């Protein structure tokens, strides 16, 4: 927001006084700047649409004339498959059911994993002794290719939802844990000392200084963490399941249905983008106090 930059400069004496327009020349200049901004946004979107059209068009054309659509599929086939799934249902039943199952697994894994990661990260980040004790174990566990655990979880928890939730959990947990740990470590000593002088006890320091300081680190990790949760759920389903998008993709692979794999990919992408959007809203709400990133204001 440009308001912030101005505020520091202009509000020293007059509260909440924004230079409001002023004379006509000023107003015209502002209007001109606004039109230039709109034109720029329009230009960017036009080029984006052109790029997508060129990419899909050339793919379709190539598949119709030169390459084998059996292996590579083509946009029109993928579209037909998507329409088919949503109107007639899939080989595994209603598409909505598959989406709901995968989403449920991902969301539960995400919630448990991020809660665990945040709590453990902050506790270890604030305790030198505990973090020194745990450091080698955490490094070792983090070095394990965690995707392999999905196979183990199938043996432990069976083909149902639990094994997928467990896979999503381990992927999310570590992503969030390391950020929360770092965030809790990098709390400004000054702020902690100031709070102690002002009368804060240990818990109050933790709750009013450490947690808010670590929040921006944690929120940054949640973006990638939801992606991991979906990956965990899909991989879990892919390894063995009776429902879900991962199973659908696995089934498409089994029947050499390239279009089905692409269609599943598109659905997952849309889900991830929606989640990303919701997380960005949450972040904006929790980090209202932060100055707007300087990169957002375009120089005019």
């Amino acid at each position: 927001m440009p308001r912030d930059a101005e505020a520091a400069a202009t509000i020293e004496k007059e509260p909440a006084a924004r230079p409001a327009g002023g004379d006509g020349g000023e107003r015209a200049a502002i209007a001109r700047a606004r039109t230039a901004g709109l034109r720029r946004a329009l230009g960017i979107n036009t080029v984006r649409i052109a790029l997508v059209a060129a990419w899909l068009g050339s793919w379709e054309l190539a598949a119709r004339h030169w390459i084998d659509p059996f292996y590579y599929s083509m946009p029109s086939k993928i579209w037909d498959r998507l329409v088919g799934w949503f109107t007639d249902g899939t080989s595994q039943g209603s598409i909505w059911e598959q989406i709901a199952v995968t989403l449920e697994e991902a969301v539960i894994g995400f919630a448990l994993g991020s809660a665990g990661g945040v709590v453990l990260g902050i506790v270890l980040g604030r305790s030198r002794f505990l973090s020194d004790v745990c450091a080698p174990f955490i490094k070792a566990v983090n070095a394990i290719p965690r995707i392999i655990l999905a196979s183990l979880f199938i043996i432990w928890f069976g083909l149902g939802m639990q094994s997928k939730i467990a896979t999503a959990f381990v992927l999310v947990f570590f992503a969030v844990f390391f950020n929360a740990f770092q965030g809790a470590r990098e709390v400004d000593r000054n702020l902690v000392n100031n709070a102690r002088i002002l009368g804060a006890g240990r818990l109050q320091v933790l709750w009013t200084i450490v947690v808010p300081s670590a929040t921006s680190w944690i929120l940054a990790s949640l973006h990638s963490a939801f992606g991991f949760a979906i990956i965990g759920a899909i991989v879990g389903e892919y390894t063995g399941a009776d429902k879900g998008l991962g199973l659908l993709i696995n089934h498409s692979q089994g029947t050499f249905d390239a279009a089905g794999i692409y269609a599943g990919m598109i659905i997952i992408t849309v889900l991830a983008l929606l989640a990303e959007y919701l997380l960005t809203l949450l972040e904006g709400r929790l980090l209202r106090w932060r100055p707007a990133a300087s990169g957002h204001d375009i120089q005019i």
Partner: protein
Amino acid sequence: MSTTASSRRDGPERSEPEVPGGPVIELENATKRFRSAGGVHTAVRDLNMSVGPGEFVAVVGPTGCGKSTTLSLVSGLEPASGGRVLVQGRPVDGIPDGIGYMFQNDAVLPWRSVLDNVAAGPRYRGASRRAARERARDWVVRVGLEGFEGYYPHQLSGGMRKRVALAQTLVNEPSVMLMDEPFSALDVQTRGLMQDELLRLWSGSGAAVVFVTHDLEEALVLSDRVVVMTAGPATIKSVFDVPLDRPRDAEEVRLTGEFLDIYREVWDSLREEVQITRERGAGHAA
């Protein structure tokens, strides 16, 4: 010499704590050593000093000599390695009651509005949200930030953030205020303005102030007494009374003859230490 430090109130009556008029801060041979990569480093040694109630003492010394360490000993943030530190007659163990501390760097909470920043102290001390905000509102007005209650720190100028920090400290009504070069990052005009504000707010409070600075002019403008420290490891070199009348106008007082006389006198003492520090710095650079 260090003996002059307590020349006015000699013989601290430690047997009867909290005698009205007794010193609020006493340092006896206080020493602080830090473990560092190259072994043990002594920041301050054998500090002897006492500060009476309502007294404004400035501590000056060359950059990096250990002035801030002195404050952290009094505040209880760092325990002394040797000697004794007493606040209101009681040995310091943890953070003493009635202490306020203004840090060199901004310590306002960036995620809280001006009002909630100022309300932090009362909230930590158990006041209800409403009562805390009530008191905070009063102090926000007193430091001249009326109308900015809902702003976040990043929307304020450097001087305004210092006002928030000042209100945050004063809302707890401390009997001892420790100030660690609080205005050093401000431009000259804003600094003068803040010095005036500080004098105005302090004059009614009855709080004892220890104000650390490397700016001798600032020290003389504000204080009743100036303590000069040696180059590190720091100890007290000499103490000067500042014979300037109150109330003072921070901008005007520095132009008077008396001011220049006392400035010259203190600077003679401080200059040697500054030179020692400079030569060491040059030694490092070579």
